[in-house]
């Protein structure tokens, strides 16, 4: 069938379907670092991030996606982190954010 070009295409939904996502890796990370569950999503980590000043890197987005089972591209994105640890100093819930970065990278591998 010849497909007509209308100058636009159907935008795909950005819904995260938790029933379809495989949460095994995510649960593994939370088991090893249960304090991550205390995150209130305030975004202080992202606001103070050195890498975020220079690139589009967003730590809060990354670990939220991982916890929801969306792993694609996360390893590459987390490689932008310079492990300076400023995010850990500002975290109101005292989460070891550097460990979160390393743990996610180690658990997921180059997904």
């Amino acid at each position, binding site marked *: 069938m010849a*497909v007509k070009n209308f100058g636009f295409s159907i935008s795909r939904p950005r819904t995260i379907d938790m029933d379809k996502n495989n949460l095994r890796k995510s649960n593994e990370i939370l088991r090893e670092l249960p304090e991550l569950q205390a995150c209130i999503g305030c975004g202080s980590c992202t606001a103070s991030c050195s890498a975020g000043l220079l690139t589009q890197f967003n730590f809060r987005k990354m670990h939220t996606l991982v916890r929801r089972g969306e792993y694609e591209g996360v390893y590459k994105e987390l490689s932008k982190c310079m492990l300076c640890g400023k995010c850990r100093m500002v975290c109101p819930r005292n989460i070891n954010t550097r460990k979160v970065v390393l743990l996610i990278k180690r658990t997921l591998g180059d997904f």
Partner: protein
Amino acid sequence: MRRGAWEDYQKDIADDKYYYARSCIRQNFFPGSEKAFLNIVGRDLGREVFDDPLHTSCTGIGYHSDIVPYETIMTVVARQFSLMHEAGFENFISSCITSFGIYTEILNTWEEFPETEEKTRESLYKATKRELYKPKNLAHTSDVIFHLRDEIKQRMKYPLVNHLTGEKLRVVEHIGCHYAKIFPKRGIGGSEFPYVLAGMIESWGGDVVDYPERRHCCGFGFRNYLVQANRGYSIANSHKKLESMAPYRPDFIVCNCPGCTMFLDKWQYTIAEMEGTTYGEAGQGIPVLTYEEMAGLVLGYDPWELGMQMHAVNVEPLLNKMGVEYDPAAKYLGPNGKYIGKPLQSVVNSSRGNTSLYDIKK
């Protein structure tokens, strides 16, 4: 929901003497609908409806596209109300859902902020030397048909029933967002349980389909559509609704908003051309009707007189189900018998056996 709360979401609809405000875009896409309304309410049911040639667009499309400022649209609306008073009417009815939303919003603004009303009064006088008179009753034309649904039922020729099997037709009703999502108490049933179209369908013998994305927007959204590059977002909304309703095998869709009727109809054509997906039976699209067309069919009007040849999705499968008598050869003949042209063959109307979405899912 509390039983008592339902009473808060009813509205008074005038019974006679209507001042009719037409829609800007409807006559281009569904050319027979407004005429059908005038015929049904005026000629068949004996109500007085004044179709004023002096009224203008409410400029709602410009307003929602950030082109027309609120002060301007209030003055335009004030002029319409003033024309209504000059014609000797007090009950204002609009054919368009966007207009209905605009009129409701402006009347509420004037109620909440009397100084704004005063300013509009001044602007109207300066611009046109007219005085502002607010309507006693404001309704959408689907409210009027809902109000008269039992009288239509008494004259019913073809109920919403499959005449071959005797089964009730499964009807998807879609309410325009500006009907009750802005001011829920101005619509019958509010924004969550709007009953205006469901009431007509139930009264005329059909079954209302309750599907997951029933209250989702069709995707018109003005700014989402006006720029070509953004239309992918607009079509995604209709796509979501159609995907959601298809497994329920609706016989047709009925809408009370000009934009929704147009988009749910024409996006089916676009989706079929883009992806080859169709949502109705036998690989065809799902016919989309305006409520006047539905009322007209129920009353036995000729489908070509109702302008149903202008739909992107062919309506013949529905007409055959209802047992409506029509002349297939007269489809593309205008009222004077002149050939009006014919659309090219499209995927959405070509029957391809069992390749509809429903069959794939099954």
